[in-house]
């Protein structure tokens, strides 16, 4: 399957990635090549196969009680943010 420029623009939008004009032809070409390689899978009949979601048989992801187990470390965590104020993360205005 070959992707068009419009396909790639749409995918980039869904993925929230800004792709420059200059980069675009390369992504169209290489993503098409990757999908073409993946098409080998179409030749296999999988109608009676159960999809595999976990690499270990019989293992399921554990659940835990929704309880507070850690202390508040907001200040430490917010040191990694580019813009914070009064304990809040700042972004461009969303609501007019």
């Amino acid at each position, binding site marked *: 399957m070959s992707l068009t420029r419009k396909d790639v623009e749409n995918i980039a939008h869904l993925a929230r990635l*800004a792709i420059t004009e200059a*980069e675009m032809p390369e992504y169209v070409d290489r993503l098409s090549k990757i999908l073409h390689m*993946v098409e080998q*899978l179409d030749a296999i009949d999988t109608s009676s196969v159960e*999809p595999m979601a976990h*690499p270990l048989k019989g293992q399921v992801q554990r659940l835990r009680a929704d309880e507070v187990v850690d202390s508040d470390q907001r200040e430490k*965590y917010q040191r990694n943010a*580019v813009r914070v104020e009064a304990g809040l993360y700042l972004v461009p205005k969303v609501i007019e």
Partner: protein
Amino acid sequence: MTELHHLTLAELAVGLKARRFSSVELTQHFLSRIERFNPALNALITVTGEQALQAAAKADQRLASGAATPMTGLPIAHKDIFCTDGVLTTCGSKMLSNFIAPYDATVVDRLSQAGVITLGKANMDEFAMGSSNETSWYGPVKNPWDLTKVPGGSSGGSAAVVAARMAPASTGTDTGGSIRQPAALTSLTGIKPTYGRVSRYGMIAFASSLDQAGTLTLSAEDAAMMLGAMAGFDPRDSTSVDAPVPDYTASLDQPLAGLKIGLLKEFFEKGLDEANGKLVRDALKVYEALGAKLVEVSLPNLPLSVPTYYVVAPAECSSNLSRFDGVRFGYRCEKPVDLLDLYKRSRGEGFGAEVKRRIMTGTYVLSAGYYDAYYLKAQKIRRLIADDFERAFGEVDVLIGPTSPTPAFDIGAQTDDPITMYLNDIYTIGANLAGLPAMSIPCGFLGGLPVGLQIIGPHFAEAKLLNVAHRYQQETQWHKQIPAGYE
């Protein structure tokens, strides 16, 4: 006295216990080698010299007080995918080039608790996506065996730092071969344990159903020691397996008489360099001499592992990497006009080309109308591949074959074609898809470049793999070779 950097972890541990040298002396020795060799190799992104010497002084006290573990006082490097509290943790990306981890990964925490010293953080392919360490925002890592060659990837820095004897061991992660392939290309012993054996908590996620942490060391004995200190149940990783960790060092010497080794027909077919294949066959003769029996087995669906992987891994990556939004941590673009612009440009500018390719591939295969055709299809074929392995392990104890189709290639040789680069992992990806433990050990040289032998086992057979690797290393000297200039 033998140079300290010629010694394995096991040998260094003996020296520390006997007080022949202190942890501070040992740490200082490796820090000075880092200072000397790292500028040309680019293997470490961050060197934590001061903290390392402080931790070494504490380890010396612990050694003197008799409260030491087998790992106390030994210095190592961590792949820069593991969060280290208070230390820059970049994952090889511009996106995290300003990220000071606010906590330790469980792997880091366990090793620190055991008294292990962290020398620094190793370079890697960006977000562990690559097989040559060329996608790192911090630049490519050079292979100590030949500076014009790649060291493999994604744990390329972890491999180069040990191969150049700037550290006696390092941590790595393996999603499709990222420990085994660099180990093969730099003449090291690398192990990727069973999925769920080592905690993924604090290990920056790439593809969560495939990622697993392991080690790069100078011997199987060292891998047994270090893995034992890392492995085990962690309630903070929901896929961590609650099963006891055996003493991997206890079974290293078991005889191999009667061991059934499966030779994967598909591994010796297309794509394998002929001379490379001969070295693998020579290694099999060593095993025959030790009493092992060779049986040819076929995994008919194995050739589908590369296309299957390149649906499953990008899908999981696109989901995992959605957390990098330019708001709470990581890179943020200049002067965003609105929130959408902030997201798009922070991500567009913060991620490199290979990461963006995989995010977009993953976004596409998960998108409405394509999910069944790509993602569900790949999950089904993943089951067929896992079933093939299960059948094979009904007949044989371990599978042995090549790790990588060729020795180390030239820096820049494969960067233009993602598919060629992806095929470097043709022999390693299967174990990740099936969640199996697998190792690479040195088995010879081609034109002065190392070649690796891969050993794959059934789930939780790490002790057997290490035993099989160790017995080979008792008979051969390949793992003891040091690249010229680093003696």
